[in-house]
């Protein structure tokens, strides 16, 4: 390796001429910066390896303050149920529950919301035994659909008002989807 030059121009020390030499030394001296640079690199490596740049993100959730019975029209209700094994079922109004894949859920949410023009209420019921990650995955898909719904409704001159709720799964719900 070559000589690392840290101190700007360095002139070679000349032999002889004691007086002159003394003056030169005071003005331009060679400072060995190797240990400093070593430490700097060490610290840099440490901080680079230990930092996590991604901070966790959040998903906002709102629940109604009171558990009251709200009368809704059956035709404006979309019930999503997540069974114990993680399978998702949807039913419109009083229709029989239909199984649906997670990837198709977005299309369904967009289609039904646009068709009913903001009046659709989405109700999510998850089995207590389903892993929490599955519920978040479903919520995430619904959140993604929201963008598209807002856009499509805006084209019709409507402002999106989200109507969504989470409800506990009843035994009746369990029975309805148990055999599917």
């Amino acid at each position, binding site marked *: *390796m*070559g*000589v*690392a*030059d*840290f101190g700007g121009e360095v002139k070679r020390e000349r032999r002889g001429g004691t007086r002159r030499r003394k003056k030169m030394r005071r003005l331009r001296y060679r400072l060995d*910066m190797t240990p400093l*640079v070593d430490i*700097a*690199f060490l*610290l*840099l490596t440490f*901080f*680079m390896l*230990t*930092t996590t*740049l*991604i*901070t*966790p*993100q*959040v*998903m*906002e*959730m*709102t*629940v*109604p*303050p009171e*558990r009251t019975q709200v009368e809704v029209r059956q035709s404006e209700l979309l019930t999503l149920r*997540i069974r114990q094994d993680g399978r998702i079922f949807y039913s419109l109004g009083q229709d029989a529950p239909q199984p649906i894949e*997670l*990837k198709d859920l977005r299309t369904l949410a967009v289609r039904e919301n646009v068709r009913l023009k903001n009046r659709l209420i989405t109700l999510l019921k*998850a*089995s*207590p*035994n*389903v*892993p*929490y*990650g*599955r*519920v*978040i*995955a479903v*919520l*995430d*898909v619904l*959140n*993604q659909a929201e963008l598209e719904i807002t856009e499509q409704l805006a084209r019709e001159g409507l402002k999106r008002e989200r109507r969504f709720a*989470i409800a*506990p799964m009843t035994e009746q719900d369990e029975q309805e989807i148990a055999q599917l």
Partner: protein
Amino acid sequence: MPKLKKRRLGFVLDMTPLVDITFLLLTFFMLTAKFKSEAESQQRFTIVRPQATADTSRLPDKDLAIIKIGIDTVAGDTSYYYEMTNETDWARVVGSMEQLQLPPNARQVKVGLSELDELIRRTRIVKPTTRFAIDADRRVRYKWVEDLMEVLRQNRATVFNFVTDRRPPEQPPM
């Protein structure tokens, strides 16, 4: 020829720009580094967060109460853990609860559902603007989260956050 060889052996390399960049990076990483909070260093579990699509909303640092649902790595049992980012509020909330029997410097407490209800109520009294976040492991049964949401609802904390991790774009949801 010999003259040329000599020149090649001893050359001068100006390292100033390299050192400049190094120090710049070092300063950046040192200033952006966030150290583990005291509460985090006390916990005995790691949370495998559920993944969600990239979002711009971030976890606030000020006046936040975090309810963690974690699976203990040693015992393997699930439990609720409560912690708060504001130290003075934390002291006021926990200080009035004798039943917890906390060591003096504890920043996180393992609680059951009834104690959690009490903690949330006191938090709401001490500082009503405190925001709540649910940081749960994706493997826990949904029952844990459902019960917690019910407790939050009863305490009029109707807006809260689920803490998630960003899912890499190419990976399909689980």
